[in-house]
């Protein structure tokens, strides 16, 4: 019988609280950094939550589960791993407090503990259901009006329209991201670099999400880490850098364009592979068999070489001078190619080859007997480049018609040491992911769409004033892509306020702890732990920010009421203290950049911006994690490892400490 361990609520809470205490001190813009040291003496400073969590040695199954959830969330949104743990811990604490106070006595349980556990489970499920159904509405009504929508066009402050406030641009969003990830010294430089890169890659007709998706998918091929230089040496270079060196000396090709072909297999037909049997042509000759056989092998190799010569000749006739090969070519190929003034780059990775194929428009050659002109790519140049201690191949593409506006460029990221460079590269990629989740259109599932169109007045959740325009209050209350809000806990304060209002306006008959008001109140209280920890160094700052925001909400309960009047000449809902004005589709929000009054500009000019949709995804992910944690009942200890997740984490360069032996 395998040893079993029953899990109680305290175990779960203790595990998560321990993880919280680990990340707590690095949280927020004022948080500190963690110094990682290896036994070899290498040291690295980092503030990234994923790095800290993956470096811990955890054998406790719940802790590993939580860390995996954090990692998965972070690969989607690129940010928020420490906030995840903080919210998780505070939610569990609130659930435990509520469950201990009134365990659900309607069922019979063996002990108080099981009663508490079941109450906690129900609470978590209720909260998750609430989040999936109503949270986006609440955010759209209660938080989004106080933020603004960044348009994809204005990247940097220089390209701002004069009417738009200087703060609202993508660069500001990136700067606050890099500030919290890398520190305040270089955040502006790096965010400028990222904006420049994205500007170069912009396809005019495309949505921002497709561009960002493209950059995210190909990021490993689009950047080159160079260690040993200060970060201010990072730059953009045009074209693509292939992270391999030439296998044959590169001829000085002055004529343009340079033609290149991508080859995926071996050019020389393989003579013999292991396990194959070569049957040479048998003749009727008897005694001369032996000699005939020998000459047959010789003939075979001679034939193979002649075929190779044909291939090279064909390539020469097409004017090809560069061969990019995915595999290692044989010595004969190298020799022949050198003779023919062709240079070969071997063992190029698949990502880079696919990017090359995409950018140049040439398909890779699969069968070396059939090399057609469509396989030939035209390059402006193809030459070696020295970056740091390595020599790479640098190619630049001819402008073709379809990508006339795109200037492909590659990022060179410099850092003082290998670990630091790796950190900067990860920060870049996380920034791209964050932008991607900000601009990704939130897809409305079938259920929510039907709910929105069929029930325009959900009387359970809002007061149905007869003044409310009943036609379409909810149709377009979605999270617009590109919504941002000032950083520093603003989102949490606003959502807290909105949730408390929502809870108080829900039907009062449902008074149990499982009722909607209690659930939203619990959630609202748990949210406040985030700004509390941002301002951990000063409780006064926390209270000041809170009062300032609440007074702003009271004074500006209709942030766009005057805009509405000017633009659309309709009657505005006069709800008392509720920001219930029905929002029209997108247009209203896009006008906010130019039309908000002075006070809200002052409100916006706080430190930094953060993305609303990232926060929303974070909340949903945390609630899902809470729910799955509380559904765990028992732990079975097996003697053999079922799978080895620690090996998977070995890709991260600082994972050397995690070499525990699996028992």
């Amino acid at each position, binding site marked *: 019988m395998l040893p079993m*361990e029953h899990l109680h609520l*305290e*175990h779960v*809470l*203790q*595990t998560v*609280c*321990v*993880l*919280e*205490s*680990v990340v*707590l001190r690095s949280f927020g813009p004022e948080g500190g950094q*963690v110094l990682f040291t290896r036994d070899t003496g290498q040291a690295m400073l980092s503030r990234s939550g994923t790095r800290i969590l993956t470096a*811990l*040695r*955890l*054998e*406790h*199954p719940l*802790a590993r589960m939580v860390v995996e959830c954090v990692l998965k969330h972070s690969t989607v949104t690129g940010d928020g791993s420490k906030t995840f743990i903080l919210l998780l811990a505070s939610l569990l604490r609130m659930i435990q407090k509520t469950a201990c106070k009134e365990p659900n006595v309607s069922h019979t349980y063996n002990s108080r503990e099981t009663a508490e556990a079941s109450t906690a489970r129900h609470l978590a499920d209720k909260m998750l259901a609430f989040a999936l159904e109503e949270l986006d509405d609440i955010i759209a009504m209660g938080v989004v009006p106080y933020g603004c929508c960044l348009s994809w066009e204005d990247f940097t402050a220089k390209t701002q329209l004069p009417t738009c406030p200087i703060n609202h641009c993508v660069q500001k969003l990136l700067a606050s991201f890099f500030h919290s990830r890398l520190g305040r010294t270089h955040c502006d430089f790096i965010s400028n670099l990222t904006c420049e890169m994205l500007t170069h890659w912009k396809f005019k007709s495309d949505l921002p999400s497709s561009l960002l998706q493209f950059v995210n998918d190909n990021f490993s091929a689009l950047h080159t880490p160079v260690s040993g230089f200060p970060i201010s040496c990072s730059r953009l270079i045009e074209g693509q850098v292939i992270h391999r060196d030439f296998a044959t000396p590169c001829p000085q090709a002055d004529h343009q364009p340079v033609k290149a072909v991508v080859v995926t297999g071996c050019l020389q037909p393989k003579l013999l592979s292991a396990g194959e049997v070569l049957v040479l042509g048998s003749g009727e000759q008897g005694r001369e068999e032996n000699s005939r056989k020998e000459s047959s092998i010789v003939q075979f190799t001679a034939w193979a070489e002649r075929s190779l010569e044909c291939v090279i000749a064909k390539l020469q006739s097409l004017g090809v001078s560069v061969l990019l090969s995915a595999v290692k070519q044989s010595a004969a190929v190298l020799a022949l190619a050198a003779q023919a003034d062709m240079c070969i780059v071997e063992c190029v990775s698949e990502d880079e080859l696919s990017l090359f194929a995409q950018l140049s428009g040439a398909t890779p050659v699969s069968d070396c007997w059939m090399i057609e002109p469509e396989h030939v790519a035209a390059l402006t140049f193809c030459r070696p480049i020295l970056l740091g201690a390595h020599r790479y191949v640098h190619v630049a593409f001819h402008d073709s018609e379809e990508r006339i506006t795109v200037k492909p460029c590659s990022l060179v990221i410099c850092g003082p040491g290998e670990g630091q460079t790796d950190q900067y590269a990860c920060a870049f990629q996380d920034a791209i992911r964050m932008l991607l989740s900000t601009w990704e259109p939130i897809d409305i599932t079938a259920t929510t769409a039907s709910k929105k169109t069929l029930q325009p007045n959900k009387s359970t959740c809002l007061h149905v004033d007869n003044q409310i325009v009943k036609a379409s209050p909810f149709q377009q209350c979605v999270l617009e892509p590109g919504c941002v809000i000032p950083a520093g806990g603003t989102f949490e304060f606003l959502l807290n306020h909105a949730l408390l209002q929502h809870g108080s306006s829900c039907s009062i008959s449902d008074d149990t702890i499982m009722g909607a008001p209690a659930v939203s109140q619990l959630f609202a209280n748990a949210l406040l732990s985030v700004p509390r920890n941002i301002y951990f160094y000063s409780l006064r700052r926390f209270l000041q920010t809170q009062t300032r925001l609440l007074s702003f909400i009271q004074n500006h309960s209709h942030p766009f009421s005057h805009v509405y009047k000017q633009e659309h000449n309709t009657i505005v809902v006069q709800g008392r203290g509720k920001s219930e004005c029905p929002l029209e589709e997108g247009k209203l929000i896009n006008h906010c950049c130019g039309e908000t009054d002075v006070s809200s500009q002052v409100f916006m000019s706080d430190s930094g911006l953060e993305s609303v949709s990232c926060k929303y995804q974070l909340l949903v992910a945390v609630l899902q994690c809470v729910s799955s944690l509380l559904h765990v009942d028992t*732990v079975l*200890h097996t003697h053999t490892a079922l799978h080895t997740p620690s090996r998977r984490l070995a890709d991260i360069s600082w994972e050397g*400490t995690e070499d*525990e032996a699996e028992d």
Partner: protein
Amino acid sequence: MKVIQARRERQDKISKLMGDYLLKGYKMLGECCDVCGTILLQDKQKKNYCVSCQELDSDVDKDNPALNAQAALSQVRERQLAAQSTAPSQAPEMNEGPSSSQASVSVPLPRPEHCEGAAAGGRALLPPPAVPSPSPPAPTPTLAPTRPPVIPQTAGLQPVLQEAEEAILTKLRWATNQLQSSASLESSIQLCSLIASCANSLRSLKELSQ
């Protein structure tokens, strides 16, 4: 409520300590301690370590008088309070006067710093004051003085003794006056005990001067 608060603080402390150890390179195991139920940590030498058992004061041990001086002290105090409210007090032995039960709460409560030594040594250490204090509930010593009476030179002794005698006689007179005019039982009893202790002091002074 305070218990819940204390428990929560203890849990917070445990979490913080465990977080520190994790950052130092300890491994968090999947097992719990048998004694207290906290998650076990393992250091690089493969030794298991429970934070709450080995570092924090135990939650339960602090109430055990055999292990903790404070607990012992509070137990003694409780017993004393219980005893005083029922039986006649363990008044000072020189009190031959009327049985003063609540009046002479002159049983001084043992102070903790003294009791620490008491737990080790076993002797009570309240030195008697040389002159009884003027306040009515005279905290006269009940227990044996530790200091053996120091006998200074006879020359320097006389004026001191005379002064002491005068002071005591003044107090005696005052107490007698008070006693004649006192109306309440309590104050009479206290004044009587004061007079008794004054008389005792005079006797000791006379012995000294001889």
